[in-house]
């Protein structure tokens, strides 16, 4: 008697655990529903099995992705956390790991990202507004659209080459913050344009009609209603693409950001380094201590990125709650 009770308790517990994962659910016995002769071969058992098997596969993929991220984070924190202190933040790079820091890289990243934002936001949003609100649908328009989408998929090092040829050499801007920021702007412009167009397309046409019906010009309708309504989406796209730019390394290596910079950039024409390049440089050195410094640098970069992404999510949620129709 006792054993059966314990067994049934165990069974109940297992069923509960399984039902939490959604793998097994108590299902009414299909035989209860009188099965008449019919054209249907219901075969519920096999179908349920397939449905559950698929669910297990999906849970597996999610677990795999999350596990990878956790392992990565754990490894970085294990290596880098010990080095992460105020000294590390406020020191310039050095040959001696104990004295090395990321002060110039942090400032370099801030300079580059600020100038990237200044260059890319007006151009990107402007282009999106033009393509979405002004341009007539035509073959040329379609071609431009396909082109922009493709540009978003071009490897970043190609943009580096372009930046080197056009900004550093042809325009003689040198290996400066400006060159780096312009190159980064090229890199993220397609993303900003695509995201902004998507946001503008999501603004219901009824809003445009309402504005036009009141005798608004196109510019009045767009500036007062269409763009503000699309702003959450546009801002999210901008922040996400800027956070992509802050983590990019390859194009800036080509444009000539250097790893050893013992000063904070003084202006747009100053030489510079950025966080990912500093990290790249440290991790390619043989000494173990520099690898740990690199891990600490990654932690700082991650904090930057997570803050920006959190800001994007915050902005989106905040505005979306206000804009419901």
């Amino acid at each position, binding site marked *: 008697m006792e054993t059966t009770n314990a067994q049934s308790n165990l069974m109940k517990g297992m069923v509960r655990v399984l039902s939490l994962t959604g793998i097994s659910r108590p299902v009414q016995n299909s035989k209860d529903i009188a099965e008449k002769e019919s054209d249907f071969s219901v075969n519920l058992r096999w179908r349920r099995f397939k449905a559950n098997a698929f669910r297990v596969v999906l849970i597996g993929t999610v677990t795999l992705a999350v596990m990878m991220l956790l392992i990565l984070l754990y490894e970085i924190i294990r290596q880098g956390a010990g080095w992460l202190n105020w000294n590390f933040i406020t020191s310039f790079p050095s040959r001696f790991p104990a004295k090395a820091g990321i002060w110039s890289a942090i400032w370099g990243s801030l300079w580059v990202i600020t100038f990237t934002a200044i260059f890319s936001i007006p151009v990107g949003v402007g282009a999106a507004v033009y393509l979405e609100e002004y341009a007539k649908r035509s073959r040329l328009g379609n071609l431009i659209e396909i082109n922009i989408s493709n540009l978003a998929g071009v490897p970043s090092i190609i943009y580096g080459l372009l930046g080197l040829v056009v900004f550093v050499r042809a325009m003689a801007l040198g290996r400066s913050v400006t060159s780096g920021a312009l190159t980064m702007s090229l890199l993220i412009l397609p993303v900003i344009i695509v995201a902004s167009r998507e946001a503008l397309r999501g603004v219901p046409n009824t809003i445009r009609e*309402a504005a036009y019906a*009141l005798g608004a010009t196109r510019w009045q309708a767009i500036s007062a209603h269409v763009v503000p309504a699309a702003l959450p989406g546009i801002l999210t796209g901008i922040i996400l693409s800027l956070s992509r730019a802050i983590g990019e390394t390859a194009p800036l290596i080509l444009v000539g950001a250097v790893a050893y910079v013992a000063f904070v950039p003084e202006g747009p024409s100053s030489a510079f380094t950025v966080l990912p390049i500093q990290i790249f440089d440290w991790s390619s050195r043989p000494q173990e201590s520099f690898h740990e410094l690199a891990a600490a640098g990654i932690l700082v970069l991650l904090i930057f990125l997570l803050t920006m992404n959190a800001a994007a999510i915050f902005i989106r949620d905040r505005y979306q709650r206000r804009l419901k129709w």
Partner: protein
Amino acid sequence: MVEAQTIAEPILETENLTVAYGSAPAVKNVNVRISQNQITAMIGPSGCGKSTLLRTFNRMNDLVFGVRIRGKVLYHGRDIYKKGSDPVEIRRKVGMVFQKPNPFPGSIFKNVSWGPSINGYRGDLPELVERCLRKAALWDEVKDKLNDSGLALSGGQQQRLCIARAIAMDPEVILLDEPCSALDPASTARVEELLLELREKYTILIVTHNMQQAARISDLTAFLFQGKLIEFGETKTIFTTPKNRETEDYVTGKFG
């Protein structure tokens, strides 16, 4: 083809108007004269072109890609589609209320005041907002929350807000494109009551799917079918002794 009757001075008039989206004409060769200070209803089955016709009166069709318009639309005798005429000008005088209430996602106050303010209104905005909300029979419900979002109102209130917004431009004509189709019967009754009051000052054109509504509130009724104006006349005549077979079949509910 049916000769449009002249009951009062026409304010809007079409001459051989044909509107096509791409190659398919939605409105074919329509001649209609809209009288001042009357409610004109446009009825007909889905796809008969009544909304398209309505939208030519304030050039809202311009926003549709690939639309082609032939013939004339005269407003006080002037062709609004003449080369060089600005659609912004006609839309100031011919306001519109849409099928789905579409307040701007801003405050109630701003919903009403935006149109006048972008068109250089020099009077007292708060006074104008109050006057329009009163005319739209909405003032008592919203006077304490003018800064709340227009989207927070109920569907019927939103539609009256849209009417207030249209009135604020001091138009001569108000076009309504199935304004009650998204509203419940009580809200519909309020809007209809409102339209009957507004007739004193404005010329009203209303597209409706609801024949009882057309019969209840309109002075004149136009019946459209397959893009053509089949019959146009006094509402009473259209609903009791229509001249045309198709009109009779439609208003008696044989099809539609």
